[in-house]
């Protein structure tokens, strides 16, 4: 396990709370499940980086993958039909899409 990737994931999660909050305000309650997963992942990742305990790192990695998945399930309809408003949510999607790669890297490398 490599904690460096979890530190990068933590930075991305911090940034995602900002872009996520903006997107949440724009799109309403539809994003509540994703936003909940994001906050939970942020807390667990912070705990993983501080403690370095393997179990917590694994849980954090799983939650990071869930954050990316919930983003796509909740954004699916908007991604399909809303091109003009994409600058509003594009930054958030780009950030959370990095998380699964970092999560897998932190477990395998």
């Amino acid at each position: 396990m490599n904690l460096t990737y979890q530190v990068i994931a933590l930075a991305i999660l911090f940034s995602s709370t900002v872009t996520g909050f903006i997107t949440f305000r724009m799109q309403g309650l539809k994003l509540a499940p994703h936003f909940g997963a994001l906050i939970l992942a942020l807390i667990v990742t912070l705990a993983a980086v501080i403690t370095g305990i393997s179990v917590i790192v694994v849980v954090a990695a799983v939650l990071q993958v869930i954050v990316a998945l919930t983003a796509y399930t909740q954004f699916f309809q908007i991604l399909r039909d809303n091109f003009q408003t994409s600058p509003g949510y594009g930054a958030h999607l780009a950030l959370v899409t990095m998380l699964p790669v970092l999560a897998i890297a932190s477990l395998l490398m």
Partner: protein
Amino acid sequence: MVKTVKALGIRSPNAGILAGNVLRSLEMPGEEVRFIVSPGAEAGMDAVARKYGYSMELNRLEKDLEIRMIPSGKTMEEIDVTGETCPGPVIIVGERLSGLAIGERLKVKSASLDTLADLTAAVTASGSRIVGEETEGDRHVITVEKCEKKETPVGTLSAANRDRVLVVQSNGTGNAERAYATFIFSKVAVSMGKKVTIFLLMDGVSIARKGSAAGVKHPAFAPLDQLMDEMMKAGVTMYACELSATFRGITENDLAPGVKLAGAATYIQLLSDPTYAVVNF
């Protein structure tokens, strides 16, 4: 109910005799009566009113006079919209006014002068008028009288009587606030007696896709699909731009019930019609 009697061209004392006969032979004794008379007919009307147990109120119209004979002790319907936020008061008053007959009055109270200013704009735009303003304790009060709405011929250039609203929505489900505003503003316009057409284009057509409005939610409002259904039932026409729909792979079969596909010509025609006020979201 308010009975309206037009007696133009009849002068005093004949107007007074006519008013006395009308009050004496009312089908519903104690009914409120408004006489529309020519200037000069008002002399002696107050004595007629007293004789039959009425109080008289004189209002000047554009050319004529309105003399209201109000049964003594009759109270006016009242509503207090304090605490309601926009567009609640306009919708509440609009619904209450729609149940009144021409000439009937409604007293509206609110702690906020801004709310009453908004209501005044809505009431006058729907053809009715404000006949009184006063203060009762901490409440500001306006008295609204329902009037007959003057119809504007289609295609006239009169900007003062635009009684149709075109709501153009180009942001779709990706912007919940604008999506809600589309239907809430439409609801207000309908309650003001306006004919509303919604045109969905660009990202706006995402609202027209079957089931997609159900995903737009905000704790302060009903889900978007409910508002959409409500507007459809209220007679709002909703078009989805054919070009924008094609760009997003939306076909006629994918549209929510009641939404019609329309081309650029329909949009341009609606925009070119001077009887439409255009709102963009």
